[in-house]
């Protein structure tokens, strides 16, 4: 083999790495762009406060929210609420996502299972999440199990559909290759189906966790005295708007961080996937 050719290819790969650095830099610029709106809103908010059109009780100043956050964090109350909510998210997510994964896998592998279960699940998906609540309270009461079920329903759908899509969409070429290399049964599943479906499954996982985090706040509407949702509801009852807004900020921030972390994990796991490189969350 001639060395020139190798050198040429080495060059191409170096170029790819350089291009990646360039896109990274552009991404930082894009991220700064994303900060403009929140900062502008903060200024507008402070401006409205300065106009003194409303009482401080209704239109709390931004700094007061920060103060409340610092205070709540200082007493440990905030951390306790967050940890309890996260625990609920985790339980509900594990139940919902694992059953969604299993069902999606079965539906993807067998057309018969898909034909018998698919339409029913799609119909169920049309029921808005919060419409389940009266039913859940009737069946499971108001305790932790009811919350887990509520969150699990939310976590279930993205997982079942994305897993199904990934598993049923294994390109024909890979199935042919599997036959050539004699990958059968478990080996076929492990070496062809799951890797090929992995990008789709991970997307499902990320959506699923995101929805769990959204629904935990709903689940904490009833029958509990803990969690970030409860913190906000009690804040509303006592007319502490600063606590309510602090809750919103915390929920948004944690959701954002979870999504970003999962995106990092996704990029790590999917190093082989071209479309992941430089992709945005």
């Amino acid at each position, binding site marked *: 083999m001639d060395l020139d050719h190798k050198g040429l290819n080495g060059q191409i790969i170096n170029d790819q790495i350089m291009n990646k650095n360039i896109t990274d830099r552009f991404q930082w610029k894009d991220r700064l762009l994303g900060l403009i709106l929140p900062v502008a809103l903060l200024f507008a908010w402070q401006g409205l406060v300065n106009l003194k059109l409303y009482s401080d009780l209704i239109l709390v100043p931004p700094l007061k929210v920060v103060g409340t956050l610092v205070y709540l964090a200082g007493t440990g109350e905030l951390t306790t609420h967050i940890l309890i909510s996260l625990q609920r998210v985790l339980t509900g997510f594990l139940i919902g996502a694992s059953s969604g994964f299993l069902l999606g896998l079965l539906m993807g592998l067998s057309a018969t299972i898909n034909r018998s279960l698919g339409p029913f699940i799609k119909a169920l998906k049309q029921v808005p999440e919060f419409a389940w609540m009266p039913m859940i309270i009737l069946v499971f009461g108001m305790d932790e199990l009811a919350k887990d079920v509520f969150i699990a329903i939310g976590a279930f759908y993205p997982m079942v559909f994305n897993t199904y899509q990934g598993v049923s969409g294994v390109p024909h070429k*890979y199935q042919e290759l599997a036959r050539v290399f004699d990958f059968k049964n478990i080996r076929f599943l492990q070496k062809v189906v799951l890797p090929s479906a992995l990008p789709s499954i991970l997307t499902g996982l990320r959506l699923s966790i995101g929805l769990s985090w959204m629904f935990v706040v709903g689940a904490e509407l009833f029958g509990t005295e803990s969690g970030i949702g409860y913190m906000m509801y009690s804040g509303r009852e006592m007319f502490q708007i600063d606590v309510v807004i602090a809750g919103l900020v915390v929920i948004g921030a944690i959701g954002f961080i979870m999504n970003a972390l999962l995106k990092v994990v996704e990029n790590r796991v999917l190093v082989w*996937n071209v479309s992941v490189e430089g992709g945005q969350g």
Partner: protein
Amino acid sequence: MDIIVAENIRKKFKLKNGQKVKNNGVVSDEVEALSGFNLKIRKGEFLVLVGPSGSGKSVFLDLVSGLSAPTGGVIYLDGKPVQAPSAKTGYVFQQYALFPWRTALSNVECGLEAKGVPKDERVRIARELLSLFGLSDFEDRFPYQLSGGMQQRVSIARALATKPEVLLMDEPFAALDAQTREILQNELIRIWEGTDTTVIFVTHSIDEAVFLADRVAVVTARPGRIKELIEIDLPRPRTGEIRSSTEFARNRHKVWLALKSEVSKAEQYTKLATGFAG
């Protein structure tokens, strides 16, 4: 000695619902890809199939590999009818043939995994093959990090890893640029000349066929059957220089003559029967 005997092969495909094709004025929902296809392939030879698009060359490879079954007739490999894919055949596809989630090394290991070859041994064999193709420095790269030519080298290395008796190559270089294509042809012929593997190679390029082949089998327009078998009387080992020799041009002309009328026939077919890309 013949390693592969194809006897009176027929292969029909049913078109998708509502699709129709016109064969000699008869409208049908079936396409006959091969009909009366007879071919004997000698052990250890490099046989190249050329023919117009849609003449069923790739279909024949699928039948030999056991990926699909003939509608009629039998293909014997080592005297036994082919029924399912076996380790006796290796397959190199035109494109998208590497598992994108595996590194170059791991892709080459593929065929050895189902055979229960231990990991150390797999890695040893795979490294050896990658180095044969000058890819030692790229063993930990994923397919998307490799150029098209490198991907096809990995693909060939992978097919060779199981030491198949017959290597099936379906237009493996068709997607490559002209220079890379020639480099890969040179490499393939260098590596193949050191083995006793039988190769069945499908291509559209007459130059490629003449450079590689011991014999060129010209396939007719659809339904495909063997029109002519042409012995390529170029000496081995062959190197790139042979391409500019007069003997090369003479062989090239023989193949071209046999192919010319079939290609124009096939073009008329496609004008009549649009919608079939076969």
